[in-house]
Structures are given as C-alpha cells and as structure tokens.
C-alpha cells in the first residue's frame, strides 16, 4: 500500500477512454462499478463537450460478484450496438474487473457474433500501466485492428498519395491544448505544402484508418501518445516518422528540417530553410523577444520545470537555450520514460527530478526557491503557498486550462504563446517583489464602505461567532445587511437568531 494524496497520471482506463472517445462513432463500455464513469463528467466539464460522452458502464454490482457478469456484458454491448450504431465498441476493463478476472475476451467474441459494429477488448493492465501508457497502447491496438481487417478484406491501399502527405498521430481529448496544437500543425503543414492525410485519434473515423499507409510520413508531436502506432506503421509499411516536439523556435526548426530530410529521401525536392528563417525572425516573436531588453532582464533567473515528459523537456530547453533562464531543476512524472527525459534535458538544467510524488516536487521547489515555476496545476498551488508565480505547462489541468481562445503550444504561434506565458510569470513575481521592498501600495488599510462604517450596532458574542463562520467573501455583505435589518427594527443587540431572521427576511 502507498499513502497517496494526489496523482499526476490517471488510471489506465482513462487513457483508453480518452483515445476511444476521441474517435468519431466509437463507443466504450466500461466493466466497472457504479460511479466509475467520472470520465464523462470530465469530458463534459473540462472540454465543455456538447455531445454525450460515448462511454457507458456495464455495472459490476453484488450480483456480478456472486455469479459473474454472465449475459450482462454481452447484452450491454449488443444493446449499445443497436441504440447508437457505433462503428466500434471497446470493452474497457477497470481496476475492479482486473481483479474479478472474468473472461472479457470471451464476452467480446460472443458479442461480435450479434453486433453489427466491431467489438474489441482494450488490452491494458490496470496495475502495470498508467493513463498515458494505456492511451498509447489503445491507439496502437485500434490501428492494428483496422489495418488487419482491411488487409484480410483486401481493402488496404497500396499507393502513397501523389503529393507529400503526413499523418498527425496522438491528438486526443482531455489533453493539454491539443485541439489548438492540431490546428497549428495543420497550418504549418499547409505552409510547407504538405497535405495532412489523417489526424488520429481526434475526430477521425475508424474505417479511414486503412488509409494511414498512404502518408509519406508520420508525425508524433507528443512523447506520450502515438509512438507505438508510429513504430507499428513503420514496421508494416516502412513509413518513417518524426517524433520531435515542435515546441519552441529551435525545436520547431529541427522538426521542419527532419520532415524535409524524409521528404527528400522519398524523392520530393524541397528546401524549407527560407521558410524557417522568415518564420523565426519575423512571424514568431520569440526570437526577437530573446534579444529584447525584457528578456535580458530575465537572464540568469532561476526556474523550476515539472510536467509530463513532452512539455517539461520542451519548456526546459526553451527557458535555457532561448531565454537564458537558469533552470535549476527539470522534472517529470513519466517515470517509465526516464531515460528519454534525462537525455532530452541534458545540459539544459542543473538537476533532474523523476518522481510521481507531488510532495517531493513541492519540497524541491521550496528548497530551490526559484523566481518562477512552470508545472502542472499542483505546482501552481505549491507556488501559491510559497508565493512564487507559476505558469501551467502540462496536464493534469483544470477547466481554466481549456481556453476557448487560440492557445497552441506547438509551432510558431505556440512560441508566441509561450513567450507571454513565461514573461508574464516572471514580471508578476518581480512586481510583487518590488511592492514588498517599497512597502506595498500606498493604501494598506481597506477603506470601509457603505453603511457599515461607523456602525454602532452591538453584536452578541455568539452572534459574532456565528457571523465568523460565514465564508469570508460574503461576510461583509451579510454583516451590513444584518445590521440594517436590526437598525430598521430597533433591535439593540444582534444575536444568532437575529442573524438568521435577517437572512430569512431580507436574504442577508
């Protein structure tokens, strides 16, 4: 057993559901107890999804414990098959079903006989992999399933697209700024004269997966999701892939050059150097920012970076290489990807921290006392407590990290967004610091306003005690209204009863 208050990566089934629900017309059925469909709330709240999340539960209850699921799972699959007519139903095991060890693949086989759509069992082990690894695995599994299916039916296209094209692999729901990143990547490809053959899993249909082989090249913008699929496609079709993260000016240029190399290898003459130069110097503001006085003032400032492998590594390189900021520590919770992370940030930071324990991260931040933190929502709160500003650069995130405005992290517009994020974090800290030195703003005393100033109303001790239980942000209003209520009725002393009488009568 492990004493845990907080986790950075969710349980395995979340990864499977994220991939399943990113596809169009794919339904996931969780083999889980009541209440495990919290994923639907997250989709509906965080992503503000207009559609019903295509995830339901085949409920594990006492009867299932006693007698097994029997027909229940099969019935639920065939029912969903007729109700929603999905192309694919993915039966998703959870921690509960892992222990029950029911023969879920047997249920899938039986349901496949009746269902019009395809049925598949997500092959993830709850106790071995986390959300991100499961997402990577599930995406691979689905792609492999449909490539095999097309091959068996002899429907697999054998030709490449006439013009150079790419698949963008790994864009998924409930991920950090993914939809904006996807738009930015498509735009970048457009600017380079490259067609986007497919984007998976977000927004694609499973029956189009057979066309993945037509792309000249696969692009895997994030470390966490998509690599298994890209490797598989390389094995099957020899399609090369680029797994660089186009985040920051230098890395975006490297990413484009890597694409160019592969296209040239496949006989497409192209030279993107002029494009890179123009974008770097004039479209993106990041290069210019790095030379400006603003950025000069950041030179040597201390920062701590922590997040998933992709974002933490990229931001570390941006801070250190493109802004001259001293990254005293870079860390990630992607323990399983430790080797890659260490290598990626080598030379760009003083220390590397690989841990899943937010307490360890918090302690390290307290010890290092950086001028700014770039981390997850958890680090933002550590920063609040230590009064250090924090920019959120990675999941886990909250609803405010799903902006409706255009906020890519990748590509050239992404570099602009990152400049704002980084610079705003530091200046806020600086202003705070100056205020401290010079004794704050000129008015420290809060000016009492309205009728409560100079109040001669007496509060009984219990009345006051009760008032103090009311949350701070409405307490002033309640106090004013209660006093007005008492004054209007010539009540001398405000007791608990008067307080609540006022609430009832005037809604104080």
């Amino acid at each position: 057993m492990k004493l845990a208050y907080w986790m950075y990566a969710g349980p395995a089934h979340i990864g499977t559901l994220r991939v399943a629900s990113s596809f169009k017309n794919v339904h996931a059925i969780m083999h889980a107890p009541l209440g495990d469909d919290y994923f639907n709330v997250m989709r509906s709240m965080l992503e503000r999804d207009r559609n019903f999340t295509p995830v339901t539960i085949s409920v594990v209850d006492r009867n299932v414990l006693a007698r097994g699921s029997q027909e229940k799972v099969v019935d639920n699959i065939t029912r969903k098959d007729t109700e929603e007519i999905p192309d694919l139903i993915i039966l998703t095991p959870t921690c509960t079903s892992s222990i029950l060890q029911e023969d879920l693949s047997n249920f899938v086989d039986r349901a496949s006989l009746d269902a019009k759509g395809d049925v598949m069992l997500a092959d993830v082990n709850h106790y071995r992999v986390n959300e991100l690894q499961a997402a990577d695995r599930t995406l691979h599994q689905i792609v492999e399933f449909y490539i095999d299916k097309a091959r068996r039916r002899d429907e697999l296209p054998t030709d490449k697209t006439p013009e150079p094209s790419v698949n963008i692999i790994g864009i998924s729901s409930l991920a950090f700024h993914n939809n904006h990143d996807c738009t930015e990547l498509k735009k970048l490809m457009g600017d380079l004269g490259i067609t986007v053959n497919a984007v998976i899993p977000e927004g694609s249909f499973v029956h189009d997966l057979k066309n993945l082989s037509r792309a000249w090249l696969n692009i895997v913008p994030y470390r966490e999701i998509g690599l298994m699929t890209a490797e598989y496609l390389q094995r099957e079709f020899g399609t090369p892939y680029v797994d660089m993260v186009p985040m920051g000016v230098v890395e975006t240029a490297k990413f484009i050059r890597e694409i160019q190399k592969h296209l040239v290898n496949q006989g497409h003459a192209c030279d993107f150097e002029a494009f890179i130069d123009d974008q770097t110097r004039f479209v993106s503001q990041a290069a210019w920012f790095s030379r400006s006085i603003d950025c000069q003032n950041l030179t040597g400032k201390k920062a701590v970076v922590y997040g998933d492998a992709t974002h933490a590594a990229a931001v570390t390189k941006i801070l250190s290489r493109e802004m001259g900021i001293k990254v005293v520590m870079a860390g990630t919770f992607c323990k399983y990807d430790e080797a890659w992370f260490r290598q990626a940030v080598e030379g760009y930071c003083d220390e590397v921290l690989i841990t899943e324990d937010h307490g360890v991260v918090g302690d390290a931040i307290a010890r290092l006392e950086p001028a700014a933190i770039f981390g997850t929502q958890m680090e933002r709160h550590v920063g609040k407590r230590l009064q250090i500003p924090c920019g959120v650069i990675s999941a886990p995130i909250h609803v405010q990290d799903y902006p409706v405005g255009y906020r890519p992290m990748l590509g050239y517009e992404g570099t602009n967004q990152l400049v704002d994020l980084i610079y705003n974090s530091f200046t806020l800290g600086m202003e705070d610091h100056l205020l401290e030195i010079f004794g704050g703003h000129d008015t420290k005393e809060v000016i009492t306003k309205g009728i409560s100033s100079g109040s001669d109303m007496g509060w009984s001790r219990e009345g006051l005690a009760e008032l103090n239980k009311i949350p701070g942000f409405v307490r002033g209003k309640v106090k004013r209204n209660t006093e007005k209520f008492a004054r209007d009725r010539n009540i001398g002393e405000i007791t608990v009863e008067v307080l609540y009488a006022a609430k009832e009568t005037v809604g104080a």
Partner: protein
Amino acid sequence: MTLADVQPQALQFDCETGNYHTFCPISCVAWLYQKIEDSFFLVVGTKTCGYFLQNAMGVMIFAEPRYAMAELEEGDISAQLNDYNELKRLCETIKRDRNPSVIVWIGTCTTEIIKMDMEGIAPQIEAELGIPIVVARANGLDYAFTQGEDTVLAAMAQRCPTKAESALANPTDTPETKNAFQRLLTFGNKAEEASATKAVDHPPLVLFGSLPDPVTTQLTLELQRQGVTVSGWLPAKRYTELPVVDEGYYVAGVNPFLSRTATTLVRRRKANLINAPFPIGPDGTRGWVEAICRDLGVQPKGLEEREAEIWASVEDYLKLIRGKSVFFMGDNLLEVSMARFLIRCGMTCHEIGIPYMDKRYQQSELALLTQTCKDMGVDAPRIVEKPDNYNQIQRIHDLKPDLVITGMAHANPLEARGITTKWSVEFTFAQIHGFGNTRDMLELVTRPIRRNEALNGLGWEQLVKA
C-alpha cells in the same frame, strides 16, 4: 386518512436497469472531513478511486485535506503483502503527521472483492495505536453518492457514548451540556430566552445527518422555538463530541439518504425514530418540526404563519417557475424531497429518478408528496428507482420538460440540445435545509430559468447540428 376520503392518486414506482451516472459514494469524504474537524479519512482503494476524488473535489485537494488514499498495489491484491501490516504502517504515519482523533477507513470496491477484513483488523490497530478506527464500506458495488455518508454515520452511530459511559468519562459534565455547540447556544443568551419559548420537558432528541454548521444552528433554533431541545447531532463538529445515544432517546434524520444510520440507531442503540418529511423547503421544514413535536408530546405553534411568511417572501422566485415542468434524472437521493418542494412551488413533475428508494425511511416524505400533488391538483410523478439514463434521455426528448435536474455528465449535452438543466450535485453542497434557506434553494432552481430570460431572443438555443 380513511378510505372514504378521496384517494390521492397513488404514486407509481418503477425500477429500471441501474445504468445511470452518479458519483461514487467515497465522495462523502469531501464534505465529512470538513464537517468532522478532528478526523482523518483513509480511502483504501486504487488509483481509480484516487483519480475520482482528486478531480471531483477540485480545488479542495490543494488545501492539505485530511484525507488520503491507501493505494493498493499488485502485492496487496495478490496477498503478497499483509493487509494488517500495511494498514498499520500507514496509520502510524497518519498519527505521526496529523494526530487525528479518529481515522475513518473507507472500504471500496476493491477491498470488497479481495475480501479485506477491515472490520476485523480495525480493532487490533485501534488498540495498538490508541486512535479510534471507524470502518465504513462506502463502495460503488452497493451504494450511490450520498449513501456514502450513510455508511459512515451508521458506523459512527455505534461509537456514540451512552449516558453511563459519558458520565464516566466526564464526571463533572452532564451529557446535555457536554456538547460545545449546545453551550454556545445557551451561553449568555438570557435576553433572548425571556422572549423565547420555555424549554419543554421531553425525552432527549438527537438529530442525524451532516450539515454545515450554520444550518445545524438554524435547525436547532427552529426546534428551540417550539420548546424542543436538541441534545446532540450525529455527526458533531468533532469526533470527540459525538452525542450520547441511550435506549429510549428519540432520533430524527435531516436527509433522505440516511436509512442505514436510522436502522442502526433503532436496532443497535434502541432509539425511537421520528419518521418525518425532511426539512427541505418551508413545507418540508414545517412537516419535520411538526412530526418531532408530535412524537415528543409538544404542541407546535406558529408554524403555519411561519411557513406562509416564507412562501410570501419568495414570491418573486415562485413566479418564475409556477406552471413549469421539472424532470429529475436521479443521482443523490434528495430527489423526492426536492420534487415535493418544487410541486408545492407550483411546478409539475413527470418523473423522479432516484438511485435507491427506502419506502419505510421515506414514508412520511412520500405521504407528503402524495398530499402535495393532491393539494396542488397535479398528477403524481412516476418514481423510477435505479433509472436508465439512456431511456431517460429518450423520455426527456419526448416530454420536453422546462427543467432537468441532472448530473454534470448530461448537463452540457442537454443544454446544447436546447434543454434547460440544473446540476444536481449543487443541491448536495448548497444549504437547502430549514425555513431560512428556501431562498437559496430557489436561487439555484431558478438560475437557469433566469439565464434563459436574460439570453432570450438570441436564437441560439440549439447548438448541435441536426
């Protein structure tokens, strides 16, 4: 009521498939750790449980909460590790770091399936550590959402001291003054007392159900007006202040989801249960106070006027909902009380979805619902236990109700389809009990309707492509 009366239309009870969305009952730690200030809640479960809690609790999670996961690993599942040793190690850490007065172990689906003997291990570790350990099996296999609190309070009910135990522990205190909360209410309140009703001599009364402190104060005062003294609340602000419950004490619930707690108090502690409607809405509050007075032999007074005053004071809100229809998808067991209140407000209700319906514990509430429908001249709603969300959404499309009270999983998708919703979980966390919170509750209910009025005529109610 005799059979000769015009029979109110009988309530129709149905039961569907149980394919519905609700919160896992372990969510009760979110409000219970805040209510019981000296407690620590240890949820013995997996990453799935932890993920739910950290997301459902939102910002609360960052405030160093007095709860944690005992996250089970593969070695625990396959019994390579010893449950007793593991739990002891964790509880020692908790004792060292937080020094709570009680550790509550929340059993989950996983501990059920692997049959971890939590009830058996707890007394041993309790003896070794010297901290009470209360075990509640609030799992998704058996319960929904607010029923989690029921399992915790049922376990705590067994820890309430008897008068003899309490006298032994505090020789100078009588049980009635032991409660700090009581002291607060009676201390130095002479001026008020003169005008208030004299306390009537009646058997001791203990109320059960976790409510925010201001609400417990309000309800206690409400009863005090009738001369009824509340000798304690289960739970109290601190575990060390659990009320005395002796044979012959009277107990009354404040929430509709507390059946197990009620059963435990009656069967194990030999208390008398006052079966009353729940103090939600002015009608429910009046019914609740009346039932308590009736069972304690106190003549209630002034309640009718008080109810009427409250109704009059919220007329502006009632105007907005009168004649409109409401549909409860069902996820927190407050549904019957809420529906009864809204029907009294002048709404119509076609369907009350509810996770679990205890017809005995909710007897008075169901009777009041039937009576309310008759009084208001509307059809009795259909009560659907263990609803099927998919079927419900088909029915919602057919019925086109003016307001759907539902969980967050369905709220945004329904809004995008032009169906007005109110998020049901808010009613669990908002203050909705007693006369004084009527306005707050109507504020919540009418908010989407007021939003609709504010955005009227913009022409973008339907936001999904047909």
